[in-house]
């Protein structure tokens, strides 16, 4: 690890100006659970680290006209403890709960998890299934986009060096939308996902799938939507057979890798099972159970 300068921002605007001033070889410090490890292993070699942990405008969870807004600095523990999220978005609570250990969840932030952008991130799938958007702020103002656009590749987002992620917004139309998240790792605690998956759905007339959104993690360069499975389900009757078929179709949307943790073939098996189960659980949630 090489020496670097450390500056602290008290607002998003100040962070942006500090990043512009010191860039481009700058990194942002939020929870630090990824960055500190990377600094020690010299994956990053910044001239300046900009600490944003004191930027109050990046904190807080609130429901407003736009929907549910979660500030980028909200920690995983805060998501797990928030009464509104617990009541309306159990999938987000499940996802937060599977991240790291208690200490990681106490420090690690939602924004950090998204910006670090590893394919196996646990925050991504449930948010993507709920069609979450992010707000990115830079010297020229702010822009909003879906997560599909925000994620570019492994450890790569659209963020420029002088931009920060402000918040994540679940649109108002999806407030309370039944959704479920499941993760499969090699153990129960402190595990990387081999596959994770989330589904969100409304139950349409005649017990049919309506606005089904399915998202998968750890099976492609970024978290992805399982479009073929979604298209198949839309308007069809909600049956175990259709859920199983959606699982099989979700496999076609993914490009899982073969590595020492698991074979691609086993990951494909998991995609089918997890997709089916998240659909089933989301449906049970819609039925009030």
């Amino acid at each position, binding site marked *: 690890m090489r020496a670097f300068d450390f500056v602290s921002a008290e607002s998003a605007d100040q962070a942006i100006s500090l990043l512009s001033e010191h860039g481009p070889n700058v990194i942002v410090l939020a929870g630090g659970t990824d960055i500190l490890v990377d600094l020690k292993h010299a994956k990053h070699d910044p001239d300046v680290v900009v600490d944003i942990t004191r930027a109050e405008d990046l904190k807080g969870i609130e429901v407003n006209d736009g929907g549910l807004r979660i500030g980028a600095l909200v920690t995983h523990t805060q998501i797990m403890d928030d009464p509104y999220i617990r009541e309306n978005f159990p999938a987000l609570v499940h996802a937060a709960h599977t991240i790291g*250990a208690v200490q990681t969840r106490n420090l690690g932030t939602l924004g950090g998890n998204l910006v670090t952008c590893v394919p196996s991130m646990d925050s991504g799938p449930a948010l993507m299934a709920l069609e979450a958007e992010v707000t990115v702020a830079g010297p020229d103002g702010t822009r909003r986009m879906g997560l599909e656009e925000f994620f570019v590749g492994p450890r790569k987002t659209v963020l420029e060096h002088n931009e920060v992620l402000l918040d994540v917004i679940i649109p108002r139309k999806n407030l309370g939308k039944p959704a479920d998240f499941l993760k*499969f790792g*090699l*153990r*129960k*605690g*402190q*595990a*990387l996902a081999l596959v994770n998956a989330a589904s969100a759905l409304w139950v349409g007339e005649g017990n049919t799938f309506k606005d089904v959104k399915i998202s998968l993690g750890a099976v492609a360069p970024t978290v992805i939507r399982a479009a073929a499975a979604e298209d198949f389900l839309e308007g069809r009757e909600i049956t175990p057979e259709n859920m199983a078929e959606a699982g099989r179709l979700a496999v076609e949307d993914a490009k899982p890798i073969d590595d*020492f*943790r*698991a*074979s691609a073939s*086993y990951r494909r*098996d*998991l995609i089918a*099972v997890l997709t089916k189960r998240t659909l089933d659980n989301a449906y049970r949630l819609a039925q009030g159970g």
Partner: protein
Amino acid sequence: MKKRGKGMGCMWYPIGFTVMANPSAATVKVNEDGTATLITGTVETGQGSLTVLGQIAAEELGISTDDVHVVSADTDATPMDTGAIASRTTYVTGNAIQLAAEKAKNILFDVAAPMLGVRPDQLEAKDRRIQVKGFPQSCLPIGEVAAHAQNGAGTPALGSASYNPPTVAMDPETGQGKPFSTYVYATQIAEVEVDEETGEVEVLRIAAAHDCGTAINPMLVEGQIQGGISMGVGMAIQEEMLFDDEGRQINPNLTNYIMPTSLDMPDLEVDIVENFDPTGPFGAKGVGEPTAVATSAAICNAIYDAVGARIYNLPATAEKVLAAIKSKDHSDRQKYLPAG
């Protein structure tokens, strides 16, 4: 979707190997304030052995464990020890300590006998006193006897001893001999839940019954059994060193070398089966490594009971279990058995 099964694993395990020298040595001195100092080469690795060894010295001297100051594992000052290995510390080092403490105690008896007007063999050490057997009111505080041994009799109360498990050489013709001093026995029963669609094995519960000779410190024995089972669970379903084609480990870190977290641990029920062994210190044998031996067999038998899939090479990862469930023809047995 999820199926439950139960399985059993039984084992015996040798304590105190004799095929090569396996000595421990100790010095015990009784101080003028009635405390004792134990000097031993063995090292504490978190299992609590220094507590147990202090208990052995205290019991022999008739004082409290709190009264024993243990000095250990200082290569400048302590005797060499074969090591905190092979589940031998309580048995081998404990025997050396008991012998050393007995020597120090005999000096105290020799010094106290004329003071109490009896023969040394009529004395016992108990409740921090040297007292006449059957007449405990006829007694002296152990510190007073130790002070008199030092300052009056001129025979300081200390003893040194070593212990090496008795050797019976292996007969080169028949291969017969006595390779180990004693043996311990255990049975563990595991209950698991297997996800038939993912192959994931959840270990729900393990009941473990272990013979360790006399349990000198039952809470530490229980802790060792619990710790050993956590290693056994890792061995059964998670832990595996993976290597590339050139022999370099692919997973040389705790992110990718998977071992159990507290969330992966089953409910544990531990039963200590005490079984006095006349060759051990106060009848004790050992409990270290044996605790992890039966676990993986019990878990793999439970997996078979749950889903009918036999796993012949560990760990029984979810991927491997799912493959076995899918094949179910058990022909993969050939793959994992040694040739011939």
